[in-house]
């Protein structure tokens, strides 16, 4: 199980390839992955950049816990979370979740679990810079 916090841009496909290279050949028949990328719009406004704050120790602990939970719920070969923090520009990946298993159903379910649990509970906070200034996403209308 691998959960990583990254303070700079990352390439999700390289992250996946790195994990794949470390897995024994023939052990998994499926890998499901999800990549979340920063948009240049949100709730009707242009977004120029975003600052992603986190609670370093709690966030790392939480991502580790989500991976452990997924591994307990499904029969996984491996699972992966990579999440950005700091300054992010539109088009850059924010988050990657992935799960490897013998069959596709478990990989799909586990991958979705990782991103949904992360989004619901992991301590991250987004601050967007729009045409009219900065705003916290949890305060944005429609959020």
């Amino acid at each position, binding site marked *: 199980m691998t959960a990583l916090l990254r303070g700079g841009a990352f390439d999700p496909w390289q992250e996946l390839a790195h994990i794949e290279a470390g897995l024994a050949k023939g052990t998994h028949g499926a890998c499901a992955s999800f990549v*979340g990328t*920063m948009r240049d719009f949100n709730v009707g406004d242009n977004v120029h950049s975003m600052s992603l704050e986190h*609670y370093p120790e709690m966030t790392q602990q939480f991502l580790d816990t989500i991976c452990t939970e997924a591994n307990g719920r499904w029969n996984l070969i491996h699972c992966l979370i990579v999440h950005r923090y700091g300054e992010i520009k539109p088009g850059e990946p*924010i988050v990657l979740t992935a799960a490897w298993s013998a069959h596709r159903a478990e990989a799909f379910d586990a991958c979705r679990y990782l991103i949904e649990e992360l*989004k619901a509970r992991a*301590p*991250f906070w987004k601050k967007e810079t729009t045409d009219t200034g900065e705003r*916290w*996403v949890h*305060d944005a209308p429609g959020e």
Partner: protein
Amino acid sequence: MQLKVKFFASLSEQTGLAETTVNADNPATVLDAWKLATGDQTMPVNTLCAINMAYAHLDDSISDGDEIAFFPPVTGGCT
């Protein structure tokens, strides 16, 4: 007892605090830690809290040496 109190995101901006140390009577709750650290500022209704990096409730008891954190609703991942 001595407590470390942390604030994140909009709550850090609102209170003017990122991290502080307070001395509290024993027993005390998470809400007491907020009042001591902020000088009894008004707490936003959607505030979340944690004790030693585990989600908690405002009426949970705290112990000497605990790290208490206050933060707004989380917005990680993406839509």
